[in-house]
C-alpha cells in the first residue's frame, strides 16, 4: 500500500503542473485591472501606471507565470496587493479556520446521515422513510445562503441564543469557538447530510438484499448485529467516496457560508481577493484548494483498503 501511495503521489505531479497553468490562466481571464480597482475612482492615470509597474503587471504573461512558478517552488506565494502581507501567511492564517468548519460540518453531516440513511433503508416506504426523503430533498435543494439567513433569523434574532457572526480561535476559547461555528457548520453540513443519507439508504438497501445477509439472518444472528456488522460495514464503501467528494466540495461551499456568517476563513479570503482583484492571493488560494481536493481524494483511496479488504492496489 505504501508503494501505491508513493506511485499515486508521483503520478499527480504533472496534474499539479497543469493545475498551476489553469490557475494562472484563469486569473488572467478575470476582467478588470487590479491596479485600477485598487486605486478606485479617484486614481490618476499616472498612479495606475506606477502601480501596474510595481506589481509587475506590465510584463509579458509567460514571464509572469514563470516567475510565479519558480517562486511557488520555493514556497513564496508573493504578497497581497491589498495590504502587502504575505500570501502564504494569509493562507496559513485562514486555512485552519475553514478546515475546522468543514470537519465540524462533516461531523454534523455524518451524525444526521448515518441514522437517517439507515432508518430509511430499514423502514423502506414507511412514513419515516418518506419524512427522511423529504428532509433529504429539502437539504439538497435549499441554497446555502437561504438556510444561513434563516438560521440567523431564528437562532440569533428571534431566540438570541447564538451570535449572528464572529469567530474566536479554538485555542483561545473552545466553547465559544464551537458555539460560533455551530450555525455555519449546520448550514454547510445539511446539504452533505442529505446527499450522504440518500447514498447510505440505497447502498444499505442493496446490501441488505444480498445472500450473505439472508444467511446471517437464517443463522439466527440478531437483527441489530446483522444490520450493523454485516450491512453497514459493506454499505459504507460507496458512502466513503461520496464523503470524500463532499469534503472537497465543502471547502468550496464554505465560500458562501463564511460570507453569511462572517467567518474569517479561506472562502472569505477568496471572495475578498476576487472583489479587489488581489491576483497573488487568488492564485495562492485556488492552488492550495486544488491541492487540498487532490489530497482528500488520495486519502479516500487509501481508506478504501481499510474498510474493504477486497480492494487491492496494483
Amino acid at each position, binding site marked *: 500500500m505504501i508503494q501505491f501511495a508513493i506511485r499515486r503521489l508521483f503520478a499527480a505531479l504533472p496534474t499539479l503542473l497543469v493545475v498551476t497553468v489553469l490557475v494562472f490562466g484563469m486569473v488572467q481571464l478575470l476582467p478588470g485591472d487590479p491596479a485600477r480597482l485598487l486605486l478606485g475612482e479617484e486614481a490618476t492615470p*499616472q498612479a495606475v501606471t506606477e502601480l501596474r509597474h510595481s506589481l509587475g503587471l506590465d510584463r509579458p504573461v509567460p514571464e509572469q507565470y514563470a516567475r510565479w512558478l519558480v517562486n511557488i517552488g520555493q514556497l513564496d506565494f508573493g504578497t497581497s496587493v491589498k*495590504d502587502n502581507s504575505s500570501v502564504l501567511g494569509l493562507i496559513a492564517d485562514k486555512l485552519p479556520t475553514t478546515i475546522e468548519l468543514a470537519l465540524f460540518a462533516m461531523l454534523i453531516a455524518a451524525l444526521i446521515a448515518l441514522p437517517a440513511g439507515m432508518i430509511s433503508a430499514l423502514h423502506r416506504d414507511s412514513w419515516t422513510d418518506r419524512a427522511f426523503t423529504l428532509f433529504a430533498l429539502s437539504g439538497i435543494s435549499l441554497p446555502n445562503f437561504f438556510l444561513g439567513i434563516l438560521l440567523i433569523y431564528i437562532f440569533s434574532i428571534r431566540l438570541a441564543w447564538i451570535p449572528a457572526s464572529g469567530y474566536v480561535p479554538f485555542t483561545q476559547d473552545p466553547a465559544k469557538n464551537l458555539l460560533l461555528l455551530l450555525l455555519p457548520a449546520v448550514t454547510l453540513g445539511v446539504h452533505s447530510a442529505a446527499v450522504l443519507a440518500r447514498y447510505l439508504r440505497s447502498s444499505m438497501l442493496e446490501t441488505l438484499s444480498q445472500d450473505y445477509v439472508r444467511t446471517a439472518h437464517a443463522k439466527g444472528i440478531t437483527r441489530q448485529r446483522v444490520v450493523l456488522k454485516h450491512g453497514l460495514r459493506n454499505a459504507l464503501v460507496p458512502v466513503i467516496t461520496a464523503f470524500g467528494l463532499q469534503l472537497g466540495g465543502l471547502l468550496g461551499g464554505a465560500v458562501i457560508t463564511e460570507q453569511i456568517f462572517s467567518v474569517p476563513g479561506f472562502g472569505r479570503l477568496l471572495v475578498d481577493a476576487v472583489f479587489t482583484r488581489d491576483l497573488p492571493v487568488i492564485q495562492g488560494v485556488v492552488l492550495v484548494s486544488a491541492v487540498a481536493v487532490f489530497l482528500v481524494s488520495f486519502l479516500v483511496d487509501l481508506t478504501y483498503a481499510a474498510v474493504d479488504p477486497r480492494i487491492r492496489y496494483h
Partner: protein
Amino acid sequence: MRQPARTLALLTLLALGVAGAETVTVGLDADPPRLDPALSSAFVDRQVLNQIFDKLVDLDQNLKVIPALAKSWKISNGGLTYTFTLRPGVKFHDGTPLDANAVKYSLERDLTLEGSARKNELSSVKDVKVIDPLTVQINLKQPYGPLLAVLADRSGMIISPKAAQKEGQDFQNNPVGSGPFEFVSRKRQDNITLQANKAYWDGAPKIDKLVYRPFPEGDVRLANLLSGAVQVITPIDPKDISKLDQNPKFDVLNYPGLGFQGIWFNVTRPPFNNKANRQAVAATIDRDAVAKVVFYNTVKPAAGPFPPGTPAYSANIKVPQANLALAKQKLGGKPLTFTILTTPGTVTTQLAQLYQAMFAQAGINAKIQQVEFGTLLDRADKHDFDALILGWSGRPDPDGNIYDFFVTGGSNNQAGYSNKTVDQLLNKARAQTAMPARVATYNVALGQILNDVPYVWVYHPNNLVGMVKGLSGIKPIPDGIIRFKDADLK
C-alpha cells in the same frame, strides 16, 4: 481551596472587564483595504483612518473648516502661503511628539511615496517649511482654494515619522497617529480593533474599544445589528430603513451626503458625440420616480454636482422634470440605440432597468450591459462605452465634485468632455480663495456643462447609519464618516 479561589479571581476579573470595557462594534460594507492615509483610495478606509489619525483641520456639521491639530491658520501672499499654528503638547500613540517636523514629513510622504493616492489633490504644493516646532508653512505653486478642505481629509492626516520609518511598507498594517483611538490589531475579513487613547489632547473618548467588522451583504449587516452582534452599521440598504424605524430598539441617522449619482455619456464617439442625442436621453429621466421606486426616498433628486446644503449649491438651478416631448423633438424622428454599462447588484440592476424603461418612453432603445466594477472603471478610462452609470462619494469643497470630472483630460472626466470656457472657469474658481466668488464662477461653468450634457445628475444619496438606541454623541457630518470621539453607549 485553590480551585474556588481561582474561580473567584477569574469571576472578579471578568466582572471588572465587563464593567470597565465599553466596546462599540461597527459593521462596515467592506473590509478597509489600506490603513495608510497616503495609500488609501477607498471610502471605507476613511471610517477607520479618521479615528486613528488627527487631521490638521476638520469639518463641522455645516461643512465649515474647523481647527483640529492646527489651532489656527493664516492665508497670505495672494493665497500662495498657508501658515498653520499647531496645538502644543500633542503626542503620537508611540509617545513621540507631534510637531511641525511631523507635519512636514507627512505631507512630503504624501507627495513622494510610490503609489500615493494623495499626489493629485496636493499637486499645487510647492514646498512645506518648518518655521518653529509649532508653526508650519505650506507654499503653493498657484493659489488653490480647496486646500483646507483637502487637509480635512486624508492629505491632512499626520502620521508618526518614527513609526513610518520603522515599518516602511508595513505601516498600513501598523498605523500610528495621534487620534482619539489607537490601532491594536487587524485580522483581515474579520475585524480591526482600536482602543481609546486615554491621553488624547481633546479628552479621552468615552468608549474604551472600537471594533470594525466587514459585512459585504446588506442583509447580513442588518441581521448583525438586529441580533446585537454590532451596535452601528453603515450604510443601511434603503429597503431596510422602515424596518429599523419601526423597531423601538434602534435609531436611524438619515442625513444628506456630499456625493452624486448619474449617467455619463461618451462624447468622443457616436451616438453621443451628438449633443441633441444626449439632451434627448437626459430629458426622459424622471428623478422623483427614481428616488421613490429604487431608493424609498432616501435620496434627493439632483440638478447638478453640488448637493443642497453644500456651499456651491444654487437654488436657481432647478431639478429638471421628465419631458418626453422635448426628448422626441431633440431626436427629430431618428432612431437612437445604445448600450448602457453598469455593475451587477440588486440596486444597480433595478436602476438600470428603470432608466431603460424611461428611455423607451421616448422611443430610445438602450441595452444594459453589466460588468464588474474594475472593468467599468477601466472601460471608462479608455472611453470604451456609450453611456455608463457611475457616481461620486463627494468632497466638502465644490472643486472636488466638479474639477476632475469636466476639465479637459481630468482624471475623472469619463465623458472625454472638453470645453475651453469650462476649463478656464474651473481653473479660475480653484485659484480664488473667497467662497462666494468661487461659487459664482462654478455656477457659470455649470450652466455650460448642463447645456452640453456630458453627464446627467440624477440623485444625491443620503448617509444612512443604523444604530442601537443607547448610543449617543454621534454628529451627522455630511462627509459620512462617523467620528467616535464623543460617542457613548448607555
